[in-house]
């Protein structure tokens, strides 16, 4: 029993990262119908930004105590990472959108942007891995054979809060209404006096900001950073978002945790080489039965 609960906690932590990244995919897709393949690399950039922010705050110039440094690192990382996302939108996606390019070209552009982020990181910082500093003092709690760390609880908590926040933004606020509006009809919406570019920038701020948060939490949980850390996890989170029903906030959240649970579950029973085979077979079966994903709806009513 302990063993099962422990693995559920492991799966919750691992699934939280998928969920956090999948939320960013789904947000941008829901509004723009754009699969932002650079999103996994924005997550990577977020991790590196948090590395430098935390290193600076803990360093001799700022000299903050770890807990204060952490409290400052979270918003600063989210802010700087959202700038990266907005920059991508400004220099790569918006010009194409203005010229009325087919969505396929925008997706290819997104893939290229991801590669540019990876390789510019490799060129600037080199191939050697970085060690993320310890920001919060780790506490290990042992409750009846089950081991928890404060970090693990924080990660799971963050994923749930981010989900609830995004759900609230999209369904309950005026700007969320505008986002949904663009997703219905991006030609009619400007006629209603809604500034479409502002809404799109806001979407990228949200998606990239939370990718930055995911990067920070990931770097704290798995403190070895390398330029390609976002590639695989980004692709998998994208698949999770599709299985959940891309464009749907709830779908991304559930899809992320579903993938986390399948992966951890397979590894506890089989050798790790079966993990991706089983995970993606199960996801394929889900899509086979429900091609729009678990919470997906027909094209016109997404987000």
């Amino acid at each position, binding site marked *: 029993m302990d063993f099962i609960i422990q693995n559920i906690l*492991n799966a919750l932590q691992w699934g939280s990262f998928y969920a956090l990244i999948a939320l960013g995919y789904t947000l941008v897709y829901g509004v723009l119908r754009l699969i932002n393949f650079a999103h996994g690399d924005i997550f990577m950039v977020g991790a590196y930004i948090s590395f430098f922010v935390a290193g600076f705050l803990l360093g001799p110039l700022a000299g903050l105590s770890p807990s204060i440094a952490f409290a400052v690192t979270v918003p600063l990382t989210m802010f700087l990472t959202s700038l990266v996302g907005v920059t991508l939108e400004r220099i790569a996606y918006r010009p194409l959108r203005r010229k009325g390019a087919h969505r396929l070209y925008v997706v290819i552009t997104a893939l290229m942007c991801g590669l540019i982020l990876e390789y510019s990181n490799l060129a600037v910082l080199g191939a050697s*891995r970085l060690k993320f500093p310890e920001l919060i003092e780790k506490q290990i709690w042992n409750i009846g054979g089950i081991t928890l760390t404060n970090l693990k609880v924080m990660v799971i908590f963050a994923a749930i809060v981010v989900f609830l926040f995004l759900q609230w933004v999209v369904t309950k606020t005026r700007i969320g209404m505008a986002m949904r509006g663009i997703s219905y009809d991006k030609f009619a919406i400007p006629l209603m006096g809604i500034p479409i570019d502002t809404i799109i920038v806001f979407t990228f701020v949200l998606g990239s900001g939370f990718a930055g948060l995911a990067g920070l939490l990931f770097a704290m949980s798995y403190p*070895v950073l390398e330029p390609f850390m976002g590639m695989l996890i980004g692709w998998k989170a994208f698949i999770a978002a599709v299985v959940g029903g891309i464009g749907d906030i709830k779908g991304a959240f559930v899809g992320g945790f579903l993938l986390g649970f399948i992966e951890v579950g397979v590894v506890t029973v089989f*050798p*790790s080489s079966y993990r991706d085979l089983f995970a993606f077979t199960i996801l394929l079966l889900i899509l086979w039965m429900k091609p729009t994903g678990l919470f997906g709806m027909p094209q016109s009513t997404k987000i």
Partner: protein
Amino acid sequence: MKRLSTALLISCLALALALPALAADTIKIGFNIPLTGAIPEVGEGSKNAAEIYLADINGAGGLEVGGKKYMLEFVYMDNESKPDSAVNAALKLINQEEVVAIIGPNSSQQAIPAGGTCNENRVPMISPWSTNPDTTKDRPWVFRAAFLDPFQGPVAANFAAKKYNAKTAAVIYDIDNDYSVGLAEAFKGAWETKGLGPVVAYETNGNKDQDFSAQLTTIIAAKPDFIFVPENYNQVALIIPQARDLGYKGPFMGGDAWGTPDLVKLCGEQCYGQFFSTHYAAAGATGATKVFIDRYMEKYGSEPADYAALTWDSIGLMVQGIQNAGKVESNPRKMRAAIRDGLAAIKSFDGITGSSKFDEQGDPIKCAVVVKISDEGKFIFEESVCPE
């Protein structure tokens, strides 16, 4: 006219190439080492060690073979840390420089193809650092100074049984990495033959994995006395902290892939106090090893790494092989065959990385060193573990 000048040129070249071979009072040895590319520090260390050895021999008037003294000449050829360049470097050494023997390449990645070239061209070769069995397998002209990957399995098994009084063991290994798989299997076999207790968990992970919590939960639930982690240092730096987070308090052990300063950088205090097996340890060395380290430090200002020490021993082996040959032939082909026979005749050798005996594949049977990661993050000699 043109043909005549070409013929003249060719005969001149032939003469020029033949001349060094005619000068029978020097013995020419080639070094196939990575002076540029991915691992230039390895080539640099090898060359540094070789220069000290060369100065020693030639400073004493040369190497005595069959009652006569011969000067040594070392030719350093860069293999750019690449397999194909290593083959080219070997061919250049053999055909242009007409060396009688080759030391290097260091890494298995380059030593396996270059070993094939040397074997086909019937030139004796010693790889200082390569631990993959394929380098010397079924190649009578190829030898090595380092132990083989599978040997580290029993080393870890014996050490852990003694040090931790362990009865049960667990293994986590990288199923995408041949080195890791081979070492994990060797360890499992060795542990089970000891008969102290079972390997209670035998878990795998992928090469790019970052989360090991599922595997570690299985391992910890099986309550092993220690965990064997034959993985690359970057994965070790994730596995050990995650196991601690999951409540594991026991010890870990690893193989020579742990032995880079980057392990301490990435893993930090969580890795302090753990042990791994490797070729040699600079800190805490005694005797001839210490003399070598001190001389190297004095000349180059840094501690010699394991490849430098193994290069030193490779040259020692080569010198012994030449002395066993008994005389120096002016024909390089005959000399190469004599050196090969001389090398094959070496039954045991005392080097600065320990003493070794040789098996029929040309592989040394030698002791490994178990190193402790100290509380300052240094690699400290703990003890040497020998094959039984």
